[in-house]
């Protein structure tokens, strides 16, 4: 925009096209070539990711904007503004680092893996730069599909595929919100540009905001959608590191940050976003405390930390939210990769079994500690500062929100402390027995698995500057959020002390076992009971209704008529005949005549009715023969009747 007037235009646009086109083309090519290119896949994909990083920094400085006609009145618009100039480099760097880790770890069918990851990265870039709803929807769908494919990457295991399916369907339910929002935006007439959504007239604007909230909550695993993130942990660790911490889940938060003006203008939406975020941060924090599986703990913590981002978007603290999003991305990617490194080395991610794992690989342990301490909100590390900045916004709008947020921060210190303490405690002599429960461990962490951790740890430690005065002011200027409230010294120090206190408490005493939170608040069960089961039961009912009622009903009616007819016939025999016999005493000829008329008349009539009903039943069943030509004949007759009716009725109606 402003930069394009400086003459960067073509370079920036080329870089943006490259940023999207290169990974998607390479990704599709890798996916299509299949197992033959497995050996080539890693270098190719690393090269592509490195090119993406370069292109990302170019676009971050040149700020290009692209507008391609797509649908009538809704162009496919991409542009890099202050917010995406931060997010896009962050995503590409994390992608590169994660891919380096994955290449060092070595996956089976790596061509497919790297291909899917690259397509996903391209989709994230489109999401982060989209300026219109069609572009956003397009990328949003691809992200969902790639997430499905990557969680179920080892498709020979049924549970992983079903986990992918759970994630896909749950986020899809949320995605419906985006379609609703697009429909409402069209109906409202303000256009499909993201910036124009806030200008939509009132009732439609509320529908748009509701749809956007739904989509963001779904992708960011906020309540009540959180459970899919738990199932998503069955995917490979690099996938968790990229999709479920830095990129896809973060896009839910990003969407709300981007649309913060829309939320602000519809006040209820801002309040909802803030409170759902705060409550998610609190409850999922508790869930994280209760987990006994390292990746599950990290997943719950991801949902909780994104709760803070939602809270920031809700209270309009865009700078704080953005800083938190970026710092969290680095931190959580680091933690997931470290967990993945131990998983591939020791074959387990159960916390009890991992006891002392940090001592075995001190470098990884130290880096992990940096990440965990940042997560806990320990003073100079990144999440401490960013969290405080967004909580300052919360304090300004509502003290209650602030208190909930502070409690959630304390919980994050608790679960971080729990992981830290277990991993650094002295290993038990029986530690071996807990290993290799999930896969065969290699007992080895490669050099190139450690280097990405170093990079990410640097980010986790240092990105806090984004929320502190010199750099923080620049960030606020970039995002146009100079007026956001700043945290006071008291709050900064207070929260650091609180985090240290909780950490110390956890190290000193054991963490309470929160049984009610261990199963992710039973969200998945609840969904199954409240939504999935009724729907599938209803459809089964409908199918059976068709079989039982429509099909057999006719037969039953026919049988009943037949039976009724027999009974009538019998009672007729008994009573009328008896009467006739009685009458016959008066006159034998009259009696016999009457009896004859009875069998020939009433009886026969009743039986013929029954026969006719039976035949009708048979006829009604006859069309369903399975014979193709008879179906054709029926279609012909029905169409002919329809034509005749049309010809007769249309003039009559006119």
């Amino acid at each position, binding site marked *: 925009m402003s930069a394009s007037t400086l003459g960067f235009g073509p370079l920036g646009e080329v870089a943006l096209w490259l940023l999207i086109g290169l990974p998607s083309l390479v990704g599709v090519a890798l996916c299509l070539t299949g197992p033959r290119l497995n050996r080539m896949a890693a270098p190719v994909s690393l090269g592509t990711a490195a090119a993406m990083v370069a292109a990302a920094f170019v676009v971050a400085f040149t700020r290009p904007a692209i507008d391609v006609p797509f649908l009538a009145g809704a162009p496919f618009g991409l542009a890099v503004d202050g917010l995406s100039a931060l997010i896009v480099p962050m995503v590409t760097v994390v992608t590169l680092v994660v891919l380096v880790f994955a290449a060092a770890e070595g996956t089976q069918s790596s061509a497919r893996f790297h291909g899917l990851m690259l397509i996903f990265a391209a989709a994230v870039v489109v999401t982060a730069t989209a300026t219109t709803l069609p572009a956003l929807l397009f990328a949003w769908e691809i992200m969902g599909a790639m997430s499905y494919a990557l969680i179920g990457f080892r498709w020979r295991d049924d549970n992983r595929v079903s986990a992918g399916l759970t994630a896909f369907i749950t986020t899809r339910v949320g995605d419906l919100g985006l379609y609703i929002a697009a429909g409402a935006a069209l109906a409202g007439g303000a256009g499909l540009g993201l910036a124009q959504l806030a200008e939509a007239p009132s009732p439609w604007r509320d529908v748009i905001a509701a749809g956007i909230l739904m989509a963001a909550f779904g992708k960011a695993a906020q309540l009540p959608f959180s459970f899919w993130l738990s199932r998503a942990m069955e995917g490979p660790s690099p996938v968790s590191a990229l999709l479920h911490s830095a990129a896809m889940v973060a896009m839910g938060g990003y969407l709300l940050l981007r649309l913060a003006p829309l939320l602000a203008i519809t006040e209820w939406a801002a309040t909802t976003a803030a409170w759902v975020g705060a409550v998610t941060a609190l409850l999922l924090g508790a869930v994280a405390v209760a987990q006994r599986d390292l990746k599950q703990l990290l997943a719950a913590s991801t949902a909780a930390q994104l709760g803070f981002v939602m809270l920031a978007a809700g209270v309009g603290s865009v700078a704080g939210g953005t800083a938190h999003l970026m710092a969290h991305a680095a931190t959580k990617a680091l933690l997931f990769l470290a967990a993945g490194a131990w998983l591939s080395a020791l074959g387990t991610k159960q916390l009890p079994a991992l006891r002392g794992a940090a001592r075995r690989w001190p470098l990884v342990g130290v880096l992990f500690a940096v990440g965990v301490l940042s997560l806990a909100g320990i003073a100079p590390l990144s999440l401490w500062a960013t969290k405080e900045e967004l909580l300052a916004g919360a304090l300004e709008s509502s003290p209650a929100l602030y208190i909930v947020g502070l409690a959630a921060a304390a919980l994050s210190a608790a679960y971080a402390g729990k992981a830290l303490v277990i991993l650094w405690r002295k290993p038990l002599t029986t530690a071996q027995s807990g290993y290799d429960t999930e896969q065969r461990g290699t007992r080895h962490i490669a050099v190139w698995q450690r280097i990405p951790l170093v990079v990410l740890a640097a980010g986790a430690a240092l990105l806090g500057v984004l929320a502190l005065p010199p750099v923080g002011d620049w960030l606020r200027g970039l995002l146009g959020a100079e007026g956001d409230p700043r945290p006071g010294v008291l709050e900064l120090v207070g929260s650091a002390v609180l985090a240290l206190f909780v950490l110390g408490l956890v190290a000193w005493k054991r963490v309470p076992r929160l049984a009610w939170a261990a199963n992710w608040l039973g969200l998945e069960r609840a969904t199954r009971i409240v939504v999935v089961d009724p729907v599938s039961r209803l459809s089964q009912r409908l199918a059976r209704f068709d079989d039982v009622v429509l099909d057999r009903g006719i037969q039953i009616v026919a049988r009943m008529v037949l039976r009724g007819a027999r009974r009538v016939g019998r009672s007729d025999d008994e009573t009328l005949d008896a009467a006739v016999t009685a009458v016959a005493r008066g006159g034998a000829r009259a009696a016999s005549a009457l009896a004859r008329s009875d069998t020939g008349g009433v009886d026969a009539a009743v039986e013929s009715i029954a026969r006719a009903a039976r035949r009708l039943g048979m006829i009604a069943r006859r069309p369903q023969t399975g014979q193709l030509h008879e179906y*054709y004949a029926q279609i012909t007759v029905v169409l002919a009747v329809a034509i005749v009716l049309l010809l007769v009725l249309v003039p009559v109606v006119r």
Partner: protein
Amino acid sequence: MTLQLVLVVAAGLFCVGLYGALSQQVVVMVMMGLELMLNGVILAVTAFWWFLAPNADGQVLLLVVIAAMTVEMTMGFAIATLLHRSRGSDMTDTATDLSQ
């Protein structure tokens, strides 16, 4: 040449095809009947296009009909091959799965 004449010819083709589709037992012969019906449709579409609204877009409909024929043909052959392989028969009378 009038619209009525062409339409009557088209109706004739259509109904000859209809007779075939209804009366033939062999899958491929049924498909020939369907093809003949679509043949009539092509002629009728052309007639409507030429005599009622001869604009550019009408021709696209003809292409769509031809594409539909292709799809019908391809899937018909595939299903006939499948039937022949699994049942050793190509009669429609033996394929009554739809009655279940």
